[in-house]
């Protein structure tokens, strides 16, 4: 690290460039472009702008294959800080998911907190007010003390920041697998609302405009965070500790209000938040976007510490800051608005026609670089990395699947699955989050397939979810990528919404490893296929490479954040829990689906992982045409008022799906189900396999003829498999009862498993 205080500049050499994460070739291009040796500050600027985090240099060629057009899209993917989707009534939703994996691995509490702060800023920098947040988290097994420390710190960090900021955390997911030990994944998503036409843009706008830095003062926080995110974690990165940024949610709240007020008042010509690479990234990207230049005088930047160098100020990742291009003549208004909220708003430069970002410090010009040469789509390098199919795929698929479960062991397997941290209730997590603040939450965590957030003053609601099963993607990257999108859409549909668009956070290993790059390409191809089939374009997102540690890469994990719209919340909003005794329990599947699935259907299942300790086989069955038909069918039933509850069959298979519907009811409603499968079926595959495109819903008995009529010709099959029953939970296969449990017992296992693993007595104990 070079964060010693200095006026002394380091002498730039190729060796120093390599230390900054640039390649010798890249350093050569910089030298050639400038026609001279870059200054130390310029080297810092290039190193962050050409890091994967800012330039997407290794991923953009693949990302461009994703479908990024759709009638609901108001801005192009990647054009602004977040995607913008038209939801009608003059309203738009800005939403995005982003990773904060590496900071969270080093300092879990602050890493996760600043991840939440950063993604909210991406939303309100567009003029949208954040209305809810979600988080997709992955850790190693909770048996490891280090993992428990990371898990606890990340959850507290998200809770403390989000709760203080005043935006509800309404959903998300948490997975545990040895693949994530040492390199947890912390993906934070924010969703905001804005009136169409009232948005702001990340542009420097017009020549002559004054450039303001607003928000917090600049310190030495997180210098080189962006390059830090673009390398593998090692013993050395442990020692690079000074880069920890600290979040201040109360200042962020002030920044939110000041920013929205300034945008509303028309004093903002362009604005970008300062996340990774702070002042560098915001000034260069805003300039390049408008095809202009910018002159900055760092002596004017409010600093928290004395003697900061130009290098440090340009690279600082101090939180809760924004860069604003002020509308001409409105400088005093801008200052007054931010002053009212007790925040700095200091003019530090102006927009020039030169196309260059020029930086002056203590009377010297410390950087003079062409904005266009630094950015994605301009001069930033674009690579096509070598891809090679990994050898492990054959090994995992050849692994022998253990013999079928004995009927007497089925109930034990179900209990084991309900206690598995991947399936068990995440209440220990979400009870630390304020899920209700702003009073818009119609369905929060733990009771439905997607969260539902009311649009006040209308009958509509947003449905939001995050989804990805990394194990599937590991076993079959392409189908795993398809399933991540398909399941996210299915969850949104189960809650009564029409899927609109996705954002994604692609967490992979080192892209220079051909096997890693192959899985990346395949997974993105799979996502693209599913997005096309489901009509949900990609609005943007984030790529996080280098998620590795000495033990190897994490499971390839393309987290999907899905946005859906419920047209009429009161009529269509649907939960997962059983609603009333006597309702019919119906299994909705593709028309061609038969009871007897092959042995391979257990591949990638939580059952294999929990009961047999295996990550083996291939990803479960998915056919996108079937998936589209099933989702369309359920949505038609929901809109016709024929569905009382709906829950898709996912981790843990049909048995866990049914158990969850009982548990979510509060423990008083169960079901008696008889699966009339032929005796030749494998019992474990029947009950615990995770073949996709299946939904279990309930309907009133008298509505059944209407259900059958509505589904006619839709290419799906709906079978009544039982009835909702008071208190009892029984599953029979071809007349033979294999599970008979009291629902409160299942609920106790499910609710307290994670707290128990953590050694925390829960309130109910």
């Amino acid at each position, binding site marked *: 690290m070079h964060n010693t205080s200095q006026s002394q500049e380091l002498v730039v050499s190729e060796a120093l460039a390599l230390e900054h994460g640039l390649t010798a070739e890249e350093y050569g291009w910089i030298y050639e472009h400038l026609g001279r040796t870059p200054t130390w500050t310029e080297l810092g600027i290039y190193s962050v702008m050409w890091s994967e985090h800012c330039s997407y240099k290794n991923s953009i060629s693949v990302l461009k294959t994703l479908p990024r057009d759709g009638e609901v899209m108001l801005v192009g993917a990647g054009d602004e800080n977040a995607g913008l989707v038209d939801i009608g009534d003059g309203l738009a939703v800005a939403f995005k998911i982003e990773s904060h994996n590496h900071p969270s691995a080093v300092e879990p509490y602050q890493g996760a907190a600043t991840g939440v702060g950063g993604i909210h800023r991406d939303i309100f920098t567009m003029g949208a007010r954040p209305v809810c947040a979600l988080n997709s988290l992955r850790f190693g097994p909770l048996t490891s003390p280090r993992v428990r420390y990371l898990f606890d710190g990340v959850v507290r960090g998200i809770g403390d920041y989000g709760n203080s900021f005043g935006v509800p955390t309404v959903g998300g997911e948490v997975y545990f697998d040895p693949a994530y030990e040492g390199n947890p994944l912390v993906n934070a998503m924010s969703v905001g609302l804005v009136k169409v036409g009232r948005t702001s843009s990340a542009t420097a706008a017009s020549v002559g405009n004054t450039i303001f830095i607003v928000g917090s003062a600049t310190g030495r*926080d997180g210098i080189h965070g962006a390059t830090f995110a673009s390398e593998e974690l090692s013993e050395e990165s442990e020692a690079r500790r*000074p880069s920890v940024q600290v979040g201040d949610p109360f200042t962020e709240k002030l920044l939110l209000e000041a920013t929205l007020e300034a945008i509303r008042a028309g004093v903002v010509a362009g604005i970008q938040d300062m996340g990774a690479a702070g002042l560098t990234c915001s000034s260069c990207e805003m300039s390049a976007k408008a095809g202009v230049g910018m002159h900055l005088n760092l002596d004017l930047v409010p600093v928290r510490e004395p003697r900061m160098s130009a290098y440090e100020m340009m690279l600082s990742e*101090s939180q809760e800051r924004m860069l604003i291009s002020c509308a001409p003549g409105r400088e005093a208004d801008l200052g007054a608005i931010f002053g009212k909220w007790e925040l700095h708003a200091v003019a530090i430069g102006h927009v020039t026609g030169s196309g260059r970002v020029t930086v002056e410090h203590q009377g010297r010009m410390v950087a003079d670089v062409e904005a266009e040469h630094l950015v994605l789509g301009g001069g930033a390098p674009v690579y096509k990395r070598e891809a090679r199919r990994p050898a492990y795929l054959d090994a995992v698929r050849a692994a022998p699947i253990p013999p079928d479960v004995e009927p007497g062991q089925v109930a034990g397997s179900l209990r084991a699955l309900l206690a598995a941290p991947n399936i068990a209730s995440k209440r220990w997590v979400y009870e630390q989050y304020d899920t209700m603040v702003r009073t818009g939450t119609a369905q929060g965590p733990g009771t439905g397939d997607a969260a539902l957030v009311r649009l006040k003053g209308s009958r509509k609601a947003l449905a939001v979810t995050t989804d990805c099963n990394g194990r599937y993607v590991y076993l079959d990257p392409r189908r795993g990528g398809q399933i991540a999108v398909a399941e996210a859409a299915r969850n949104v549909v189960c809650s009564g919404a029409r899927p609109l668009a996705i954002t994604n956070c692609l967490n992979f290993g080192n892209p220079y490893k051909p096997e890693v790059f192959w899985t990346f390409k395949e997974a993105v191809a799979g996502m693209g296929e599913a997005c096309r089939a489901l009509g949900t374009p990609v609005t943007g997102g984030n790529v996080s490479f280098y998620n590795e540690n000495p033990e190897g890469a994490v499971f390839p994990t393309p987290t999907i954040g899905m946005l859906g719209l419920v047209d009429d919340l009161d009529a269509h909003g649907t939960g997962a829990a059983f609603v009333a005794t006597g309702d019919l329990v119906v299994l909705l599947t593709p028309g061609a689906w038969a009871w007897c699935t092959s042995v391979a259907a257990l591949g990638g299942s939580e059952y294999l992982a929990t009961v047999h300790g295996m990550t083996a086989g291939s990803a479960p069955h998915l056919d996108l045409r079937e998936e589209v038909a099933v989702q369309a069918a359920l949505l038609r039933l929901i809109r016709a008022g024929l569905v009382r509850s709906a829950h898709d069959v996912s981790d843990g298979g049909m048995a866990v799906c049914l158990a969850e519907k009982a548990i979510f009811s509060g423990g008083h409603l169960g079901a008696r189900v008889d699966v009339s499968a032929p005796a030749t079926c494998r019992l474990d595959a029947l009950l615990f396999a995770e073949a996709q495109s299946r939904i279990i819903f309930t309907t009133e008995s008298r509505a059944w003829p209407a259900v059958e009529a509505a589904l006619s010709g839709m290419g799906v099959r709906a079978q009544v498999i039982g009835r909702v029953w008071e208190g009892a939970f029984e599953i029979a296969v071809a007349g033979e009862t294999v599970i008979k449990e009291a629902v409160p017992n299942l609920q106790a296992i499910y609710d307290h498993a994670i707290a128990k693993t953590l050694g925390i007595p829960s309130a109910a104990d």
Partner: protein
Amino acid sequence: MHSYKARITVTLRPSILDPQGKAAHRALTNLGFSTVQEVRVGKVVEMVLHEPSLEAARAAAEAACQKLLANPVMEDYAVTVRRVPEIAAAS
């Protein structure tokens, strides 16, 4: 074995943002303490150890800081140890 009292001061490292200190600074300024230039908030931990020597007591206190009392990622700590009159070990 003797009793030793360790006094541990935990402070944020110099470059780390201190929102609590910032809030205290603002409140002090609002109360009229116009000369206050900066506020940083830390904590003091006192503990009594039963150890054979001053060095052993210091080592134990240091280890406690590393493992629990301080967050070495963000905080510095300073330990002073002195011998105190015997305190019976907790039953």
